[in-house]
């Protein structure tokens, strides 16, 4: 080790000397740039660091990535939940789901048309919207198709990461103007009860949303984690519906029509509806029910030895705050309260922790969340009983990881059902 350090330091000095000799280093900045391109030196206190920069970058060894498997116009990429800390998702790792690709939109030309059952139909440019009093809130967005791989018998494969199973979940600080402020500006006519929100992508993504939700807490969001919303999240403007399924939170928003009935678009009829065993299909199932996932340990990690480990995960509910997360380390036979790491915000993810002394034997670890309505995250058997295995969305059942004697961790729900 010591010998290697000497060699690499010698090699660095030789390289630097060679460059100096060749006349490539003329200023201190040149020298620092050279240093920055090198591998980490054996002793960073003996080498000058690099200068300031206009745009930061992650440490070379820290390169979390979305999982973008399908290269198609209608596709998704998943957030690496296993690599993240706290509750905020870095904007460049926020999951994607789009139906016609990510449009390229010029912010200065983008406009929002608000019309229908209003007193004054109006057009707002982005500069107009930015002049209204703004609000900022931290909320999760989850695709209602998230977690299908933890629901049906066929899909419960052991070799799946938490990113593959539940990565259509991200949390951001969202900044924008309440839709209620804009509807106040245009004046809603009596009898109005819905809006149609329409996007400016090549799928012209459209969803109907009840007016009471819009007036309650919907946002016209243009900011995300301190900067403009990323193109993949709807730049320059998206609808934000706290706690509701991601699809209804129309991105690249260009039009709001105030109506007295739903439009019955494709995405709220043939998609994003839930066939049930009694022969019906549940429609307008907007709210994301309480759910939790353990992110560590999970598939991709291994526990090298028995002893103390901190189990971590995320819990969230579209109906309000998470009030309790319980963790089982014996396959669901007994449960203990996990610690909720604040802040605990409504319609937002909360990180939970549970200190566990692993005895080195095979076991399954599970989590279950309770929200402020008293709703407890159900087992998959409970969901199967009321919704059948063929339902299409809303898979918020408890998950399980198997921790093997070897320390290997795999998705373990399939062994418990």
């Amino acid at each position: 080790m010591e010998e290697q350090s000497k060699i690499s330091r010698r090699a660095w000095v030789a390289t630097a000397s060679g460059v100096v000799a060749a006349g490539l280093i003329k200023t201190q900045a040149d020298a620092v740039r050279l240093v920055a391109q090198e591998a980490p030196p054996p002793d960073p206190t003996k080498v000058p660091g690099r200068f300031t920069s206009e745009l930061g970058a992650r440490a070379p060894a820290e390169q979390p990535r979305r999982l973008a498997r399908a290269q198609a116009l209608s596709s998704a990429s998943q957030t690496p939940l296993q690599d993240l800390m706290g509750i905020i998702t870095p904007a460049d790792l926020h999951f994607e789901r789009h139906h016609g690709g990510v449009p390229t939109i010029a912010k200065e030309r983008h406009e929002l048309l608000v019309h229908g059952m209003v007193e004054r139909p109006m057009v707002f440019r982005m500069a107009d919207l930015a002049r209204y009093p703004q609000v900022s809130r931290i909320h999760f967005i989850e695709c209602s198709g998230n977690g299908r791989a933890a629901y049906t018998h066929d899909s419960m494969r052991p070799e799946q990461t938490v990113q593959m199973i539940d990565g259509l979940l991200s949390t951001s600080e969202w900044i924008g103007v309440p839709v209620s402020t804009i509807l106040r500006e245009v004046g809603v006519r009596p009898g109005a009860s819905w809006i149609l929100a329409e996007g400016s992508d090549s799928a012209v993504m459209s969803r109907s949303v009840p007016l009471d939700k819009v007036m309650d807490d919907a946002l016209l969001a243009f900011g995300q984690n301190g900067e403009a919303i990323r193109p993949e999240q709807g730049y320059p403007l998206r609808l934000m519906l706290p706690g509701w399924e991601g699809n209804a939170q129309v991105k690249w928003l260009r039009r709001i029509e105030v109506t007295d009935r739903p439009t019955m678009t494709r995405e709220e009829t043939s998609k994003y509806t839930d066939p049930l065993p009694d022969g019906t299909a549940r429609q307008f199932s907007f709210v994301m029910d309480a759910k939790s996932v353990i992110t560590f340990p999970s598939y991709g990690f291994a526990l090298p030895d028995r002893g103390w480990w901190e189990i971590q995960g995320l819990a969230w509910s579209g109906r309000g705050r998470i009030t309790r997360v319980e963790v089982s380390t014996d396959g669901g036979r007994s449960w203990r309260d996990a610690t909720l790491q604040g802040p605990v915000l409504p319609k937002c993810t909360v990180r939970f922790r549970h200190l566990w002394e692993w005895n080195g034997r095979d076991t399954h670890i599970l989590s279950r969340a309770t929200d402020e309505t008293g709703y407890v995250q159900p087992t998959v058997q409970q969901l199967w009983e009321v919704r059948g295995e063929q339902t299409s969305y809303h898979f918020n059942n408890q998950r399980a990881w198997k921790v093997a004697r070897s320390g290997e961790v795999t998705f373990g729900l399939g062994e418990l059902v």
Partner: protein
Amino acid sequence: MIRFARATAVALLVAACQPDAQDRPASSVYGPEGSAFAAGTPEGLPAHAPARFGFGTSASAARIAAWDIDVKPDGEGLPAGRGSVEQGRQVYMTHCVACHGPTGTEGPNDRLVGAEPWGEWPGSLTVGGYWPYATTLFDYIRKAMPQLTPGILNPDQTYAVIAYVLHLNGLVPADAVMDAESLPAVAMPARERFVVDDRVGGTGPLR
């Protein structure tokens, strides 16, 4: 921040999804005066905020007409034009077959044709088996199809290809012609099966 009567909103939600409810005017969620803001000031606005800020510009009728392209389940928004099953077959074989297959069942993208017996509900989520409103086809195709050249079909072609897909599903006869009158009148088998979300959270029975 205003609190609206949840019961009223839920009742409206339910009413809006009953058969033909879209033809009835719903009562206002904001009371008889129609003032959405009588109960207080919206979140984010201080008490001294003006009733109107005056930002933004009036939308002209022409501007609204250019962008207001959606179609409601009662047919509102459908343009003039018409198309037959036979004309639709030609449109389909030109613009749709590559993604949906020669008979609408092969893919590689969404399967369009085939109504499974109800005993196998939901079976395939096809137009004949799962789509509750025929008007949705016009709304969706005009906006988003064909996927690589969205908006390329004119109203006649759009009506025609819808007629063809409905015919492949056995929902209209071979001599059917679709237009703003006939399309909303097509009876869709899945219509009666859609119910409004009844999940409520809390400690009651899981739904």
